[in-house]
């Protein structure tokens, strides 16, 4: 009997060893890896699922896409943990470039932020003339507002809107930070019938499973511009400069911009992003 047990355990060990070898073999990457740190909004909308295979096909680079908030993405760039960034917080990006961490920053596309909430709209956000007025109405009503609270581009924009309003709601009981991505935050706001600021793309992508509706949209304060930029190779060894440069170029070239223009048309009946290449602001 002990012989059987021995054979069984040896067989298990052999299989496990093969498994381990396979895992190691699969992991041995090459120098063509390119780490792209980007926002959850571009990722969750599915846009990059369409674009990255084309880029990989064209250039032979292998993209490792890490979807984090814009703040985390910039931080990864600052430490040299990423090669190229696709983010949407222009003022933070400017600081990043000014400090010498980013180079070759190019405008890619825009969409807009919208304020969403329950369809009943008890505080009449639909009648608000701009975004700060709308947030002011939420503040006065003390109805729950859900913030990303994760230093993402959307979070940064939301904070700057509150600042413009001269308010600091972060310690208020009606103001909750989810600390999660846009998708999760919308779902929480949906379940608990609260308000939230979201990029339009993520909202449209999740619309089917949400009861929330867009209550305020379309003013200048809500423009959401995405930029792509290379992490400065002079700051860190090991950054894939050629790959990063190729990716920046890919994002602004005409054929990519055409894909961006049509993305979402079939599924949502409207495009999620507007091509906006050519320039820095």
């Amino acid at each position: 009997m002990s012989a059987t047990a021995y054979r069984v355990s040896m067989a298990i060990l052999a299989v496990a060893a093969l498994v381990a070898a396979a895992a190691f073999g699969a992991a041995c990457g090459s120098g063509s890896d390119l780490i792209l740190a980007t926002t959850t909004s571009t990722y969750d909308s599915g846009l990059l699922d369409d674009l990255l295979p084309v880029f990989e096909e064209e250039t032979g680079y292998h993209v490792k896409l890490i979807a984090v908030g814009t703040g985390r993405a910039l931080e990864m760039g600052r430490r040299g943990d990423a090669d190229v960034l696709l983010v949407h917080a222009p003022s933070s990006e400017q600081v990043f470039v000014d400090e010498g961490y980013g180079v070759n920053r190019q405008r890619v596309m825009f969409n807009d932020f919208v304020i969403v909430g329950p369809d009943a709209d008890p505080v009449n956000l639909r009648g608000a003339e701009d975004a700060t007025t709308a947030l002011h109405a939420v503040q006065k009503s003390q109805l729950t507002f859900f913030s990303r609270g994760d230093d993402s581009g959307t979070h940064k924009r939301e904070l700057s809107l509150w600042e413009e309003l001269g308010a600091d709601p972060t310690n208020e009981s009606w103001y909750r930070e989810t600390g999660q991505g846009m998708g999760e935050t919308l779902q929480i706001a949906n379940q608990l019938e609260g308000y939230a600021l979201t990029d339009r793309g993520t909202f449209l992508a999740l619309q089917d499973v949400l009861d929330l509706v867009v209550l305020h949209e379309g003013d200048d304060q809500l423009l959401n511009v995405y930029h792509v930029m290379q992490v400065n190779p002079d700051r860190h060894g090991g950054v894939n400069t050629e790959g990063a440069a190729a990716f920046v170029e890919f994002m602004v070239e005409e054929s990519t911009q055409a894909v961006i223009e049509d993305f979402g048309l079939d599924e949502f009946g409207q495009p999620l992003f507007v091509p906006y290449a050519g320039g820095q602001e």
Partner: protein
Amino acid sequence: MELIWEGVREAFRILGTGDREVWEITLRSVLVSGSATLFALIIGVTIGATLAFRRFPGRNLAVTLVNTGMGFPPVVVGLVVAIMLWRSGPLGGLNLIYTPVAMVIAQTIIAAPLVTGFTVAALGSLPPGLRPQLYALGASRLQMLRLVLVEARLPLLAAVMAGFGAAVSEVGASLMVGGNLGGETRVLTTAVVLAARRGEFAPAIALSIILLVLVFLVNLVLTGVQQRERPS
């Protein structure tokens, strides 16, 4: 409720039609967590046997540390491994971050204390006279270790189950060190997180069901071995 049924139907549709991506993710889960369990077994049995048979100063502290490790939060393991493996980290030059190897490392660290703890308990439950008897019969150290492990194989299988269960169902560390890259480091748990975030609940439920079935099957096989081997 409707959502759950839809998810269950989707799960069976996927299982039935053999959706390639889902099977890849499932296979990757098995490979990554299986390797981690293997390494955890090697490390855990070595340390566990030492703790069970040797008497040395600080042994109680070591056992306490192992017991603490059994409840170690995976997300903390993930953070520490990620900091080490980031390009800017001390082991950044190895280029292991966002690879399956990084996930194997993190899951090994999560599973190893479990295997160690179970090993200490398993070997501690052997008849106290067994080792002196083996010595008296002239067994070498290596022979003795082998014989002792064979004697304790049933509880050791429990260690494998616990280790694999912890590794395969862990999500925080895998997300952090693996990055949830499609086709590379996406495993069942991180795929569930992504699907739920994207509002794709039916696939999320389907993947969850596959994960449950996987853990169930592994336990079924190991329990089967255990029962067959049980001395009557």
